[in-house]
């Protein structure tokens, strides 16, 4: 194997990384104000929901399944979280304790959703597409019923302040502050303050790194790939395929709940439609990242890149003042392009051997 082939293999596997790079360079040159730290942070922030949902969906797609319910599970959990925080704080609890208490039922709702999905897929043998399509409707309806069809707002300010906090604030040449905007900054100076490293981004990066280890280094991760290769082979090898699938669907819904929680922190409200667009976006990110819908391949790194491509497109097209509707066309085209490239490269790789 020469270096050329290795490079080529990398290029075929990680075309999405190169595509992201080209996209960023293109927008940086053509879009005024695109090339700035603040904007790059915004791209990352715009991608965080897709990343969180996408991490869970990556596991599901590697097993050869699909989860259509994550978007509305995200919406449902955001409604649960927001309404519990609101009720508790109206009942006189402090914001900190309200948030901590609300985590428990929110995560529980996520896990229960996943248990139902997983049970129906793994034990009742319903195709994942159908099972999670059912949950897609149920989670959507449940969230609308729970919230009465309106966003759940009026949460304590602490919520949105945590969700939009940065690790560093500094005014070039004047001061640098950690985690808090200093008191008494004049309004005229506010717009010159540089905010660096959003707290939400740090949380998402830590979670993503953890999941990279789970998928690529652990027994659980290996079994996920094995199940996606062949359920029969996995079962013969002694892997408990059904309980593994159950865990995978729970994981996907748990990440949908994390998406819902993140939404509440970022926007200070819960909304049944919070993740409506992200069901397809998260699947798109996973596929752009190189996972095959046939199962057995894909990784978290690819999904993160896929999510960043979608985020960069959304913001880049806005900056170029292109009608935002074009982003749907662009994302759709990239998905198809990516899958075709994947087919092509696998044929090519076979020839090399």
């Amino acid at each position, binding site marked *: 194997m020469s270096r050329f082939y290795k490079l080529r293999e990398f290029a075929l596997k990680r075309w999405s990384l190169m595509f992201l790079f080209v996209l960023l360079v293109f927008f940086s040159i053509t879009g005024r104000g695109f090339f700035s730290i603040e904007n790059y942070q915004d791209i990352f922030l715009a991608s965080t929901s897709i990343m969180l949902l996408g991490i869970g969906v990556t596991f599901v797609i590697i097993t050869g399944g699909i989860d259509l319910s994550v978007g509305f599970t995200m919406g449902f959990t955001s409604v649960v979280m927001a309404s519990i925080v609101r009720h508790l704080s109206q009942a006189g609890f402090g914001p900190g304790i309200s948030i901590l208490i609300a985590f428990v039922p929110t995560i529980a709702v996520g896990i229960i959703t996943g248990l139902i999905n997983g049970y129906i897929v793994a034990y009742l043998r319903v195709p994942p597409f159908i099972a999670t399509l059912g949950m897609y409707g149920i989670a959507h309806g449940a969230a609308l019923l729970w919230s009465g069809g309106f966003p759940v707002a009026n949460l304590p300010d602490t919520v949105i302040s945590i969700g939009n906090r940065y690790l560093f604030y500094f005014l070039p040449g004047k001061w640098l502050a950690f985690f808090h905007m200093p008191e008494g900054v004049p309004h005229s100076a506010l717009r010159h303050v540089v905010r660096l490293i959003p707290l939400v981004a740090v949380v998402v990066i830590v979670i993503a790194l953890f999941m990279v*280890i789970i998928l690529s*280094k652990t027994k659980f991760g290996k079994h996920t790939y094995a199940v996606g290769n062949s359920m029969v082979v996995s*079962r013969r090898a*002694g*892997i408990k395929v059904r309980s593994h699938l159950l865990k995978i669907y729970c994981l996907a819904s748990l990440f949908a709940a994390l998406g819902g929680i993140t939404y509440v922190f970022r926007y200070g409200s819960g909304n049944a439609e919070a993740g409506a667009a992200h069901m397809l976006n998260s699947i798109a990110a996973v596929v752009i990242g190189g996972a095959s819908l046939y199962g057995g391949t894909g990784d978290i790194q690819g999904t993160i890149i896929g999510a960043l491509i979608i985020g960069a497109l959304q913001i880049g097209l806005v900056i170029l003042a292109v009608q935002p509707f074009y982003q749907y066309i662009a994302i759709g085209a990239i998905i198809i392009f990516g899958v075709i490239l994947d087919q092509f490269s696998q044929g090519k790789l076979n020839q090399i051997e």
Partner: protein
Amino acid sequence: MAKVEPIISIRNLTKKFGGLTAVNNVDLDIPPARITALVGSNGAGKSTLIQMLSGFYKPTSGEIYYKGEPLPLGNPLSVKNLGIETIYQDLSLAELLDVPDNVFLGREKYRTVMGLKILDRDHMKAESEKVLKRLKINLPFLHKPIRFLSGGQRQGVSIGRALYWNAEVIIMDEPTAALGIKEKKQVMNLILDLKANGVTVIIISHEMSDVFEVSDCIAVLYQGKCVGVREKNKTNIDDIARLIITGSSEESPVQTAGGENENRH
């Protein structure tokens, strides 16, 4: 021959798939450190029978005893951990995983780091290399998906995986079906080697010449039933062929023509 305690005893074993009875009330004893061949026409229930032994299928009724103890049913990992390995006809390899992953599939070696089961890849790679070297199986690489290997090489990985765990019983479903003459000879020698080392071997084969070359006794399945067990030295190809085709060792001219056609379907 002196009567020896069987290592595996199958009792009243039945497997139904819906309305189809694939294995019907089978009783069979497998002698230790011998090669037992399981023969029968297509659909006679051979593969179903061995997949109950390997824990893949859970029997509808009946028991299997291993060294006198009941064998866990429908639990592949427990069966493997007791020392019974299976080499499947389709090799049962995960095509997109590499060689060490396949050798250790389901029984990965790991270290627990902060509650996570982190795979010990170096160990698994070294051990896979060792077992392949012992079996004189040369592979162009270990760390690429198995699907880039040739049929014979894959067969090697499948056999290596079964032998790595020092099994006491090895079940082989059509081990030579997809092989060339040279590889076939190697596998036949391997089977005899295993026996010389005290391993019990159960093989399924359609090739009567292979069966008579290596086996010590031959069990015949016919429409899900065990219709005869013969010591190889006390039987011949005609007798076995008659059992396979008619399910009975009695010569009956009336039955031959009609019975044969009926069973071919």
